[in-house]
């Protein structure tokens, strides 16, 4: 297909440099006095959604043990393969996780682990301020996951799609 140069015949009165410049300057000047939109981050924080999927949290029973029964569903469903689970079994035959680690760097925060968990043990949480000095610091073990205190993410409810 040959390229045809399309030349738009603009009305003469619209082609003016000085007036266009003055118009632009009036616009920027009006913005000078408008309300500023900056959120002063460390002091002020934006409200995050109730369905925000952030740092993981492992819920515990009343006795303080992790609710996890090491069924292996979350490492199976995890698309980024960031959950490491070694199941163990006590004398009563109850399964529990010997090793449960989540690499927060690999995680894509899809929230499938929370959705798939039959015991409602692992959750993604409404929290986003993670910083560490090393990559290893981002591998959260079971102890660290149960120690998190931030609120957990709410799942999407089809009856209330906008979460209102």
């Amino acid at each position, binding site marked *: 297909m040959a390229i045809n140069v399309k030349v738009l015949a603009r009305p003469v009165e619209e082609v003016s440099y000085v007036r266009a410049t003055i118009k632009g300057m009036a616009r920027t000047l009006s913005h000078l006095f408008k309300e*500023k939109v*900056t959120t002063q981050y460390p002091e002020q924080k934006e409200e995050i959604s109730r369905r925000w999927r952030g740092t993981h949290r492992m819920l515990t029973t009343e006795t303080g043990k992790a609710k996890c029964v090491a069924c292996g569903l979350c490492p199976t469903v995890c698309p980024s393969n960031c959950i490491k689970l070694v199941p163990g079994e006590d004398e009563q035959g109850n399964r529990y996780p010997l090793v449960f680690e989540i690499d927060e760097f690999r995680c894509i925060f899809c929230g499938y682990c929370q959705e798939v968990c039959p015991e409602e043990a692992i959750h993604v949480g409404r929290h986003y301020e993670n910083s560490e000095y090393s990559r290893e610091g981002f591998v959260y073990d079971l102890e660290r996951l149960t120690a998190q205190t931030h609120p957990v993410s709410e799942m999407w409810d089809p009856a209330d799609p906008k979460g209102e």
Partner: protein
Amino acid sequence: MIPSSVFAAVHVVPDPPLDWWPFIISTVIKMIVVFTVYMVGVAMLTLAERKISAWIQGRLGPNRVGGKLGLLQPAADGVKNIMKEETLPGHVNKPIFTLAPMLAFIPALMAAAVIPFGATWDSRWGRIPMVIADLPVGFLFILAITSLGVYGIVLAGWSSNNKYALLGGLRSSAQMISYEVAMGMSLIPVLLLAGNVTLNEIVDQQANMYTWNVLTLTISFFIFMVAAFAETNRLPFDLPEAESELIAGYHTEYSAMKFSMFPISEYANMATSSALMATLFFGGWNIPFMTRDNSGGVGLLLVLLSIAIFAVKTGFFLFVFIWIRWTLPRFRYDQLMSLGWKTMLPLALAYIVIIAATILALDYFGSTQPWLQRSSAWYGVVMLGVNIVLAFIVFFILDRGRIISPAYGRATPQQIARLRAVTAARSHLSPQSGD
């Protein structure tokens, strides 16, 4: 026939002249004060630039150092730049590489020496003019010195031995030389009107006519302002350091304090240009509707008032510099060149002819009609009338429908037909759709 102001070109020594020791002491004090104000002003300009850009974009700007306005931010930036490690790339031409920031910096400051910033002070030691060097040729000195600034930039670009830096330096030299012509030409009407090249005399002339030169010579002011933006390498003419194409242009290889010399000299140039615009076109330090302060020395209070008036005018133009920067996008290089050579220069030349003819006619009538003499209010009124007609022609007729770049021009039907014929003839060469 020859107007008396022609003879006034010979500078009149202030009477009574200063003794040698008050002269030296007052000059040293003025130098120190002006230098300090300049440097602090430049530092504050970097803050103003960031603040105003932030406000225009709906942000708050720096507010972490020194209160809500971030008043200590320039100090923090300065300390950072001095403490930073300075890298000297191995491939540069070291002597010139070191010399270039100084060459950019010195002319920017030197021009400030001849700009009058206040009314003459009638002190008990004699009359002290509020200008560091009361040069009779102050105006020519400024034109000469400001054009030296290009050496710093060109040498920085060349000695860096870097493609981007060299391109930035070349662009800046071409740009500054092009706009220098238009700038010089745009100021000739001002000189014709004042009949003098002493900046103080130009201020007096505006006071005597009860008009500012911006009202009588609007087109000169317009050309001068556009050229001043190009001379100071400010947006929309900041092609020498166009980040998107040239990394940082001529100062790509610089670091630490050597680097910050270039922004400092840019801001100092801005301050000089603003002061010059205020002096040449907006009445300078003259207190409006008052000619007494021009006739000789005045008291300290009036001197301070005149300095404040000058500072306000200069500050306004500095704001305009920043305001324009955050409004307009950068020109393309061919647009820059065609604007300078094809629009600004012919406009300035035509304007000189018209203004010179008007002044000649007015002087002719003024020799017989005393009310129409040079430096009278009626003279200003006639100039104002001529100017309104000319400004209308330029801004409402010439500005309309004329584009500075050939690439944007309104194509005639013949041109469109020719372009279509070319593409049609080539159509068998290009891949068909679906390939």
